[in-house]
């Protein structure tokens, strides 16, 4: 007999060892997320995947599914709060979507659309952040980093390297790279590394490819992120 949890009233099967996110994705239920990627150890930091499990607030990407869980996911209250958390990410960094190469392919932007975010709500921090264009093939624009650590995990877990890390405390968090000079060009990152391609925002970009797909024909230009995400991630979770 398969074990089940309920999400928004629907029975969802799960296997031992799966998180709520794993079970939901496998069953075709979208839970908004940014720091989660099925191929990497869950991180649990962005809090977009916040759900209520028997009334208690939990992160779906890290919380193990277990028999008897009644999960609330797609509710107005949760989506309102997720929208505000997304707005926090927008005001913390400097995200000028219209002038960003990643526009249309950006998960942060797509999640904002999905959550019907129409303004920034909070005052901007106008943080002063640098760019690192030193590397021949890869660019870091720190203005757009949301500290999801996907590049950190991809570099360690897929590429067998240690190119990226998150450093600093509190609002002074920032991405650092593993070279004596502190510049990307002096790391062992290669453009073919997973870490160079995993960024959900436009913080890590491959140079000279920005406009190969024209605006208007990009991933989220015609599809919502729930559809795209489920189509690409359900496999991994199954």
């Amino acid at each position, binding site marked *: 007999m398969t074990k089940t949890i309920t999400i928004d009233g629907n029975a969802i099967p799960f296997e031992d060892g799966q998180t709520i996110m794993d079970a939901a994705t496998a069953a075709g239920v979208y839970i908004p997320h940014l720091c989660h990627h099925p191929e990497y150890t869950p991180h649990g*930091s962005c809090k977009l995947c916040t759900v209520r499990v028997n009334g208690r607030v939990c992160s779906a990407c890290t919380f193990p599914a277990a028999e008897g869980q009644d999960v609330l996911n797609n509710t107005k209250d949760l989506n309102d709060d997720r929208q505000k*958390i997304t707005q926090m990410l927008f005001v913390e960094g400097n995200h000028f979507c219209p002038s960003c190469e990643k526009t249309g392919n950006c998960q942060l932007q797509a999640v904002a659309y999905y959550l019907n975010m129409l303004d920034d709500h909070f005052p901007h921090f106008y943080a002063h952040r640098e760019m690192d264009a030193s590397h021949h093939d890869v660019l870091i624009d720190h203005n757009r980093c949301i500290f999801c650590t996907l590049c950190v995990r991809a570099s360690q877990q897929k590429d067998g390297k240690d190119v990226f890390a998150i450093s600093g405390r509190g*609002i002074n968090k920032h991405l650092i790279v593993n070279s004596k000079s502190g510049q990307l060009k002096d790391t062992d990152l290669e453009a073919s590394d997973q870490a160079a391609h995993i960024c959900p925002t436009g913080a890590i970009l491959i140079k000279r490819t920005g406009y190969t797909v024209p605006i208007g024909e990009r991933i989220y230009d015609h599809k919502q992120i729930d559809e795209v995400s489920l189509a690409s991630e359900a496999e991994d979770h199954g």
Partner: protein
Amino acid sequence: MQQFIQNLAEKNQHQVTHLLEILREIQARYHHIPADAIEQLALLLKIPRTQIISVVEFYSFFTDSPRGQYELLISDSITDHMLGKKNLMEYIVSKLKVGVGGVRSDGLVSLDNTSCSGMCDQGPAGLVNGHALTHLDRSRIDTIAELINQQIPLADWPAEFFQVDDNIHKPGLLLSQGIVHGQALKKAMARGLKATLQEIDQSGLRGRGGAGFKTAMKWQFCSEEAENERYVVCNADEGEPGTFKDRVLLNSYAHQVFEGMTLCAAIIGAKQGFLYLRGEYLHLVDKLQSVLDERRQFGLLGNNILDRLDFDIEIRLGAGAYICGEESALIESLEGKAGIPRNRPPYPVSQGYLGKPTVVNNVETFYAAAAIAVNGGDWFASVGTAKSKGSKILSICGDCARPGIYEYPFGTTMQKILTDCGAEDVLGLQIGGPSGTFISNQEFDRKLAFEDLATGGSFIVFNNSRNILDIAHNFTHFFAHESCGFCTPCRVGTSLLRQQLDKIVDGHGSAGDVVALEELCQLVKTHSHCGLGQTAANPVLTTLERYPELYQSQLKLISYEPGFDLDAALETARRMANRDDAGAHLAQTDAE
């Protein structure tokens, strides 16, 4: 430097878990962590340099640029402010000729703020090169300025500058009758370890660090894990502003605390224990080491304790991070990493230090457990309330005649405590520190208890001369400074909260701003990853609930005001255009 670092690495057996210890010594010697030191250490410890950088940049006591040969830090607890810190800081700046956050041009001295240093009953307090300074005043600052200018080593500074008093004013159940060294262990062995755990269960002892989890249950869970390596950790991070009772327990009752840890080790089957001591309590280290040595000599620690047990305790120091009091962040810190709270489950009792089952308890919890092993569960359970058994040791400070340590049975009213410590004309009190609750003088019949007013020990009294908004302001800034930054709601939310509260307190708030403040509070409280974020809005929420009119009265009568000062924002443009005429200025609003 190369030789120094090489030796340091060797002394620490090239163990990554000792990274904080190593960095503490480098900071002490060079007053920063030089980039070359990081390069060399990365090679010696075989870890990426980024791992070291992220530790350096996480802890307040490590700096990547040089600080003064005398690193002076002044405690920023609300109680230091109540004792005239602001004034004193201005005096220090003028006397030492160094700005807050700066280093004097001769490199001799640097000055900065630091979160509560745990000396609230003897402030204003500070730290010089990590050593606690108490009772700071103008005349001491005069002397300190001289000592620094003449480059007198700390060892030759007047001893009274570093004197830290216990100030125990009211011993109760535990403090009035200490145990004889070894007695708890002997009784436990004689009674049987299972039966002793039963006694602790019977006592109803709940964790004294704040959360109040049942101690016997924690030890039981840990002992049931199918692993053969386990750890005991004593949480002496004591970072909650206004709390200093663990400092006193470790200063005068360390034997009993270590005995409690050893008892726990016997019960759960651990061979190694750690005392995680906040960096601010560096002054206790030598004394604690000698207590450990004494216990080894008595056969109460080390190999073959009472012919039954192998267990030893290592002291590990923090480096200025409140979040390291959170048990999983503490474990990360013990492993030599930044103090970022882990995802749970798994809980430390099943996967803690190095992934092994670990019991983390507060200093007072171990202290009480040792007494229970001697006197039995009923002895302890006969005191207190139905849900909160035994007594609680409080550190009382703020506006009262006799700040210091007081021990009360659970169930004692606030009024009784206030009378005992000599508090008059009281406006309200903060119980449980910034993460706890503010209560007004209409609520002093409320009780000390997990089911009413819980506290890890912090108890701060405010008289009617104090301003509620100053209090909320100080606490809110504390949380923004201490947020580890892992999760969005707390990392961004505590900074937004600080901005939004400042806006209101500074008189720039308008209608809607208090509502926005409350909405933000709920968001941070509900969605944050750990206890820090979940309680960071309490200072605002608990005062807003009691004094809504105070917040409202700060608001202007206009319906909207931008969060920044329009005219001030034009300053750069004015400078560039070399203009200062009326046309180059903008009125904020003309609605007034």
